């Protein structure tokens, strides 16, 4: 049963798919956005919802910075329930080695017009009095923000719909050769099928080098004023999360409700149950940095899966295995941040325009021939 041909079909209405659908629809394309769950209900709802500039690699830096700017200009149009808050990120240094990392990061961000400020030990203690006293200062990235991502995904989906996109509530069972098969028997056709199914994307496009990387989060009761900035340990990149083994790092966020959202952990694990051993390690890490968190009440803990690629960069662009399939997946822990840039890159790619930043580092073809079936 064929029910339609579209200029573009986006599979998955997580934050990335929703952003793509909104962007393509605004370009005047006939768009279908398909998801059986509803907007932003999987990894988008499970994650922390940060909009951060990260410098793990030059390509990551460019993408996160570009996308953050897009978020900042969109923020005025988000409803209050999206809880957008430009709280800034504090990268805290625990020792002299990490303190030198503050300097390096500061110089890099300044060179690229990202506003940052080095904070001394005392200045840090004033900004975040709940942090332990012995820290060696921090780097404040002023433009970083947090938001409640499922509502943002919902807004982007509505935005797409208001520009003519068709929202289809059904499960996609297969894609390829210009055809999308739905669980309910419907068949859709398009020469541009965008796989934005995140952690589920390899099921639809076998051979995709995307693995599920499980994370845990915990959220406290409301303690207004306890925390004002997102705070991340500088060891975040250089140690814990670059290892392939299970790891935890200190990362806390203030929510508009006064709650403290506590992360983070990384495990290559496809189960969704809370693993109390790693949850305990993650919380112990948080208490090392913020001792009084120990007596706060935890209301809920949960897990989610990041869609992780081998080189920690997303897959944006044509899939070499099928000329009708395009990818917008593999964003790992930066899906919220980089969703808007992903959409803009693909949209420029489709319309043959020059992209705002080079798309090459994110093209799926970079991973070589061997990565697809």
């Amino acid at each position: 049963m064929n029910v339609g041909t579209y200029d573009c079909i986006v599979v998955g209405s997580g934050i990335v798919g929703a952003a793509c659908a909104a962007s393509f629809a605004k370009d005047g394309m006939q768009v279908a956005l398909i998801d059986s769950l509803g907007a932003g209900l999987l990894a988008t709802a499970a994650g922390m919802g940060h909009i951060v500039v990260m410098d793990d690699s030059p390509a990551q830096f460019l993408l996160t910075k570009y996308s953050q700017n897009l978020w900042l200009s969109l923020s005025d149009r988000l409803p209050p329930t999206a809880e957008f808050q430009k709280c800034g990120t504090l990268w805290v240094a625990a020792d002299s080695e990490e303190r030198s990392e503050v300097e390096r990061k500061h110089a890099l961000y300044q060179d690229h017009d990202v506003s940052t400020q080095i904070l001394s030990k005392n200045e840090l203690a004033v900004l975040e009095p709940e942090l332990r006293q012995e820290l060696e200062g921090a780097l404040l990235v002023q433009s970083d923000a947090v938001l409640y991502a499922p509502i943002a995904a919902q807004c982007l989906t509505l935005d797409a719909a208001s520009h003519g996109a068709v929202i289809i509530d059904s499960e996609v069972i297969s894609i390829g050769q210009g055809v999308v098969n739905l669980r309910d028997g419907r068949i859709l056709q398009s020469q541009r099928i965008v796989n934005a199914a995140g952690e589920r994307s390899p099921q639809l496009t076998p051979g995709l080098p995307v693995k599920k990387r499980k994370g845990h989060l915990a959220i406290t009761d409301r303690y207004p004023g306890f925390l004002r900035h997102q705070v991340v340990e500088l060891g975040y990149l250089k140690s814990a999360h670059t290892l392939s083994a299970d790891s935890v790092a200190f990362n806390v966020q203030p929510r508009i409700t006064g709650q403290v959202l506590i992360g983070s952990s990384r495990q290559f694990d496809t189960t969704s149950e809370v693993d109390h051993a790693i949850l305990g390690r993650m919380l112990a890490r948080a208490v090392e940095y913020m001792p009084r968190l120990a007596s706060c009440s935890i209301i809920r803990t949960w897990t989610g899966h990041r869609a992780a690629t081998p080189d920690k960069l997303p897959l944006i662009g044509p899939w070499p295995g099928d000329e009708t399939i395009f990818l917008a997946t593999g964003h790992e822990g930066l899906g919220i941040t980089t969703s808007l840039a992903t959409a803009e890159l693909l949209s420029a790619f489709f319309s043959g325009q020059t992209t705002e930043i080079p798309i090459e580092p994110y093209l799926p073809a970079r991973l070589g021939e061997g990565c697809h079936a």
Partner: protein
Amino acid sequence: MPDLVKMTIDGAEVNVQAGATVAAAILMSRSGFRRSVHGELRGPVCGMGICFECRATVDGQPQQRTCQLHCKDGMVVNTDE
């Protein structure tokens, strides 16, 4: 006479029967304990620690369920009022 404990509720010193819960002690002088997230006044409902409507700050610790706490000498309780 039953034993009494002396405690402070919203700045006022009160004597309460030993063994009473903090919720019962607060209810003697006021029925609203907390302001809801949109500012409505709320008081205890379930009496057994389930509904979380009887929360108050006890000895500096916010969000305590007062129906589950027993009054102690010197306890300082603050409601949202």
